[in-house]
């Protein structure tokens, strides 16, 4: 309440479901979203809801024998709107939601797919449509929906090394047809950046706690910022514009919240410097990254070193009694978001005055 321009985070709609929820995604170009979850008996569900003047209306429900864990529309065009899902058994499926049928299924992972991200479906000149999946089996695989059965790229530890559980994957730096980067976070706190053009590991670091979620501020620009959230209420923001050969990227760490695991961090699609973190105590926090005056300086050896900016918390609000495990901003409407939590509620959140920031 410091001044009148503070954004407000309000729960617009709360809808209780009778099963566990893992992920939620807006269907592009619509007022509908998909909720991905699993029933107590172990089967997976895909439910489509439509917001209808302050109410949620369930349009469709798809049930499958295996629990779904995550999903994305990123590799599909706005007209086709095919949902790619990863399930507990390691199968990647692509769904035609209109016809309620799979159009693609492959099971290359041997264990649960924890995280999925898609890219290239509706952005022109930003590369091929691709899906990246991170699994408990320790591998990160990149898929092209046009190539059946086999991943187009596979990142796994060399023979003999322990396989770490991959918790988070994300695409980024895809500003033309060739360039693309995959970032992967592991349970031991490793954060690895793979360059898909050169097929090499570009950068890695350890964040000391398991990486729960990671996201670029934008996928289709030369990489600018990266957020990685970890256990024990911490998250890191990296400035990716300047990579120092010895020090890597400049970063800013926030561990002020003491709110348990930070499950999700999502950037506002309309403003890349604002992002929302969802914590284990059901709290959502809106942050603003403030750039330093100079984003890099030249050190004594004559090499550019990035300068981290500052984080400012704009608003926080407890909206749930249980951890919020997923959240997505709507691409078409500023301030509209949908979130799922372990309290079996799906919530439509409204954030006002985002445009003033």
């Amino acid at each position: 309440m410091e001044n009148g321009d503070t954004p407000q985070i309000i729960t617009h709609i709360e809808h209780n479901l009778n099963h566990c929820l893992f992920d939620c995604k807006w269907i592009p170009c619509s007022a509908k979203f998909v909720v991905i979850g699993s029933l107590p008996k172990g089967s997976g569900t895909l439910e489509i809801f439509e917001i209808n003047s302050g109410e949620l209306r369930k349009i469709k429900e798809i049930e499958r024998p295996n629990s779904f864990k995550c999903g994305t529309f990123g590799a599909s065009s706005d007209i086709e709107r095919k949902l790619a899902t990863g399930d507990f058994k390691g199968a990647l499926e692509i769904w035609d939601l209109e016809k309620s049928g799979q159009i693609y299924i492959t099971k290359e992972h041997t264990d649960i797919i924890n995280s999925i991200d898609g890219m290239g479906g509706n952005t022109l000149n930003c590369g091929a449509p691709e899906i990246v999946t991170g699994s408990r089996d320790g591998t990160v695989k990149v898929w092209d929906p046009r190539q059946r059965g086999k991943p187009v790229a596979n990142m796994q530890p060399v023979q003999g090394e322990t396989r770490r559980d991959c918790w988070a994957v994300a695409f980024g730096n895809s500003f033309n047809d060739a360039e693309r980067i995959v970032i992967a976070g592991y349970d031991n706190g490793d954060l690895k950046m793979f360059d898909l053009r050169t097929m090499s590991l570009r950068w890695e670091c350890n964040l000391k706690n398991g990486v729960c979620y990671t996201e670029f501020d934008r996928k289709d620009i030369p990489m600018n910022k990266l957020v990685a959230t970890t256990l024990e209420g911490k998250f890191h923001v990296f400035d990716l514009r300047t990579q120092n050969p010895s020090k890597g990227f400049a970063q800013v760490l926030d561990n002020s919240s003491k709110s348990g695991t930070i499950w999700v961090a999502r950037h506002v699609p309309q403003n890349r410097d604002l992002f929302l973190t969802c914590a284990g105590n059901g709290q959502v926090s809106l942050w603003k990254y403030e750039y330093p005056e100079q984003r890099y300086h030249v050190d004594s050896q004559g090499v550019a070193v990035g300068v981290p900016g500052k984080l400012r918390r704009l608003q926080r609000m407890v909206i749930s009694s249980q951890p919020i495990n997923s959240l997505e901003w709507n691409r078409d409407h500023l301030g509209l978001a949908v979130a799922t939590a372990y309290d079996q509620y799906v919530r439509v959140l409204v954030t006002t005055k985002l445009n003033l920031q």
Partner: protein
Amino acid sequence: MDKVYKIQRQARDNVNTLQTYLTDLQNWEIEMKRKEAALNGDFVQDLPPVRSKARKDKPVQVKKQPEKRITGSDYSAWAKFDVNKACEEVDMADLGPVSLDSKKSQSAKAEKLKEEGRYEKERGNNFVKQEKWDEAISCYNRAIELVKDDAIFYANRGLCYLKKDSLHQAETDCTEALRLEPTYVKALQRRATARERLGSLRAASRDLAAVLLHEPHNAAARRQLEAIKARMGTKGAKSKSSPLSTPTNESKPVVTNPPSPAKIVELPSEPVKKELSPLEKWRNGVGENITVIRPVKKPPHLRSRRALKHVPIQEVPLGRNAHDKAPTRMKIIEINDNMSHGDSNNNDSNKITEKIIETTPHCDGDKKINMKITEHVNVNEVVQNMVPPVNSVQFMAEWKYLKGNNHARSDYLSIIEPTKLPSIFENALESDVLSELLYTLCNNKDKFRNKTISAYLKGLCKVKRFSALAMFLTNSDKNLLNDMLSHCKDVENLSDNEIADLTNKYEL
């Protein structure tokens, strides 16, 4: 107190913003539903290749540093900039792969061009079948542009030029085709035809001989060769020999080979020695004080560049010198005068004749003398000068010219074959002319003794639309006709049937 108020206002503001936001949201929902309904149909996207496949040809598309753009202000760089090379590069980019240096792509390109050339040839051949020579020529032009070393294209274009009577071009094309393929029989035959029509018979016969060498059973070529040999024998190959027949010129293109001056000199020199026909004499202006102007036969680029001189044109009648001009009516009367008044070469003969003519209708005695005289004169002079007309215009001109001279008219009429009357008059006979004709016929019966009056009458009534003319015959005309019919009956022994027929026709 102040703080409490502030908080209250803040809360109210927030509620207001939320309210507007929610209204917005509702509108948005409606709009999204409408948008979504419009979202259907196929979505085609130009996508990059699948990564694993793209990797295979990655070494090929090695990341080339894009050439540095030259900024507008960098004048020194622009000074070094090779515009021609840049243009060429742009052109080449249009043509095909940039890597022209690689042999594979070059042969592929040649193959592609050949394919294009063949396509154009096919089109050209179709036009030839439809006898559209110009279109066919443009097709072959394109084909030749694409593929420069195909004899067929040249030979086919040669054929088109031959059909268009562009003989020199035809010959050049055939020569080019033969240079590329010396045993191309069709090209040889076409060149022979072109040369034959150009007049270089010897070269043509040599070509045909070559054809027969390759194809001894080519009947067409044999026939053509024989025809040419016959021409050479009669006309004398020596006069027609052209520089083309020299072997050195054989392979040279002869687009601009005008008839050499030697030929022109040679041609008239020979026949002059012989007896010239009158027409030939007139053509060369023999015995006349004139310079004969001949048509220029030089190709445009060899002609003089000086401005043309203005030459006043004088009309000279055919086959006569300027001083013995064609006789006119004046002359006839002169003789007439001489006969009646003895020799008088005076200048006022015109007046005298006028008097005579004026007096003729009045004094019968004079008239008879005059008529007899004119009869003689007419037989000698007028008929000699007069030619029977072939159409009504000629007839009317002469007829009007002889107006008032009844004898001349009758003479004129007597030289006309009566059966030709319908074809002369067609449908231009008018009633007043008919009346005059009848009058002339009736008054000079003895002149038509040979051809008979009845023949004329029959001829006249065969003229088109005669029935209409017969309706307008005057009473005097009818009297004349009756007179003539009785004459026919008595003198010319016409049968009753024929008389009745004529009576019917003339509606008497």
